[in-house]
């Protein structure tokens, strides 16, 4: 199964054969065929690793003269990352939305879908914020996505919990790939459907069919997930290594925190920088966003930079609030004018901090301390 879905060009072909629209593209290509195939697809296009995943081995080619060099780079990366240097070409859409559908395919092959997730908030082709349901889709599009996902799972003979990924461009929906695993963003589907996906996956692995029918699946309310990674969002999201020397995690109604975080934890360069995930559910999308803002304001991680500032920004963007955002959303981060209000508040904080610093040096403070406390402090600062 992993082999079949891991081979992206084979799943593309299977999906297309099942009548699911796919982006114009190729199967695995040789360097010799690439130029002619690229001409047929049109530019810009992407070169992707056939065995790829996680955004690795993907190269954007804007014009024919960039093709040869990009092919060599993509093959080298694919070989290094996946031990397989086969690559394929695919049409590139300028500003699509990334939408994916959760499926459960039982041991008997009967497959249900659990609705879609919007995953367009990305940097380096990796997701930062996901939500369910996907905002801004018509009910017709939602229906088509669900049907297409089940059709793809059937076409490749899928058995497991999995995700079928699509790009949505205006009214068009294109299949891109199957993720044959439980994904990082699965909690948003769990919170809206009430179905424990990990448990469902284990039951399938035990040889059971899916326990419920498609029309028993109901999405209730809205859920959003923010990925908290040890990265410096103000510095191109460069991963930050260090030691977590303090942490307080949020809680409260509708808040779930999936976390592997503890004080004293070393964040090393050997692992993915993802530290934890905050998921907020509420009856409405606006309510979930409010709860998420509150949870992020409670979240304290000391010792390493995190993506939390980015999330504050994202959750206040008009296009995010309106549910009209695409994969280029995060490009606007850090490019807008600085907030004057934040500058004012930061200056107040810095002055108050400096004052508190003086208070601890000057003696006695406030006249409130007993004399012996003041004497001890004076001793301490000598």
């Amino acid at each position, binding site marked *: 199964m992993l082999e079949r879905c891991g081979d992206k060009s084979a799943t593309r072909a299977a999906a297309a054969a099942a009548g699911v629209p796919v982006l114009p593209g190729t199967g695995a290509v040789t360097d010799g065929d690439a130029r002619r195939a690229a001409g047929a697809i049109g530019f810009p296009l992407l070169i992707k690793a056939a065995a790829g995943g996680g955004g690795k081995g993907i190269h954007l080619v804007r014009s024919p003269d960039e093709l040869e060099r990009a092919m060599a780079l993509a093959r080298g990366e694919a070989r290094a990352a996946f031990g397989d240097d086969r690559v394929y070409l695919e049409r590139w859409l300028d500003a699509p939305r990334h939408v994916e559908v959760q499926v459960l395919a039982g041991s008997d092959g009967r497959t249900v879908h659990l609705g879609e997730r919007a995953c367009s908030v990305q940097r380096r082709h990796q997701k930062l914020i996901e939500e369910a349901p996907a905002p801004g889709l018509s009910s017709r599009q939602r229906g088509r996505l669900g049907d297409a996902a089940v059709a793809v799972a059937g076409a490749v003979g899928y058995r497991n919990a999995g995700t079928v990924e699509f790009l949505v461009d205006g009214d068009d929906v294109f299949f891109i790939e199957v993720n044959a695993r439980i994904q990082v963003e699965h909690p948003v589907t769990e919170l809206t459907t009430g179905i424990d996906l990990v448990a469902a996956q284990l039951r399938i692995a035990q040889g059971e069919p899916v326990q419920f029918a498609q029309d028993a699946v109901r999405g209730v309310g809205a859920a959003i997930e923010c990925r908290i990674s040890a990265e410096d969002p*103000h510095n191109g999201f460069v991963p930050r290594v260090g030691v977590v020397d303090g942490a307080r995690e949020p809680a409260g109604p509708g808040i779930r925190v999936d976390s592997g975080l503890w004080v004293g934890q070393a964040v090393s360069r050997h692992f993915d920088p993802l530290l934890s995930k905050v998921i907020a559910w509420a009856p409405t999308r606006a309510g979930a966003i409010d709860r998420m803002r509150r949870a992020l304001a409670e979240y304290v991680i000391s010792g390493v930079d995190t993506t939390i500032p980015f999330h504050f920004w994202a959750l*206040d963007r008009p296009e995010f609030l309106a549910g009209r955002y695409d994969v280029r959303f995060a490009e606007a981060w850090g490019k807008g004018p600085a907030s004057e209000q*934040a*500058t004012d508040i930061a200056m*107040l904080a810095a002055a108050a901090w400096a004052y508190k610093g003086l208070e601890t040096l000057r003696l006695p403070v*406030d006249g409130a301390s007993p004399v012996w406390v003041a004497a001890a402090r004076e001793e301490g600062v000598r």
Partner: protein
Amino acid sequence: MTVRGVRFDVASRGAQRHLDVERRPDGLWVRPVSPEMSATHVALEPLEGTEWWRLTVNGTTVPVRLRRKDGGVHVILGAERLDVTVRRALPVPSRRSAAGAAGGHIEVRAPMPGLVIATPLSPGQPVEQGNTVAVVEAMKMQMEVPAPIAGRVEEVRVRAGQEVAGDQILVVIRVTPVAAT
């Protein structure tokens, strides 16, 4: 004896403010010296064991990370990251200096316990507001202590190399009487 208001020159992203910080019974108040901003109640509570603080400004609480950097403060606040420079400015005139403005004496006190590095002025010399009357070192930082008001140096009570306590009198200035208008 209490810590009186302290004036800071604060700058970030090209904006500059003179901020008077004062502790009152209900907490810290920050008063911008410019008239367009009113006094702001500020609470800054540490989140123990972290570099983060809970900052409450006029009733709204936000987490803020404060870190010393290159003599300034590196701030993370919401979505924003910014560098703020904070320098102690002239002390807020107290009642004593208000009396001084009528032609009395002003005692210039050490801003913190430390080591006197220099006293550049001698008794009898004229001094402008803002002129350095002493340099005090503490925590490996040298701070120039400015004259809060113009006048003439009457006494220099400390000398270079001397340890001083916080609030110890360094220099006494006889204030130039304000001309009646």
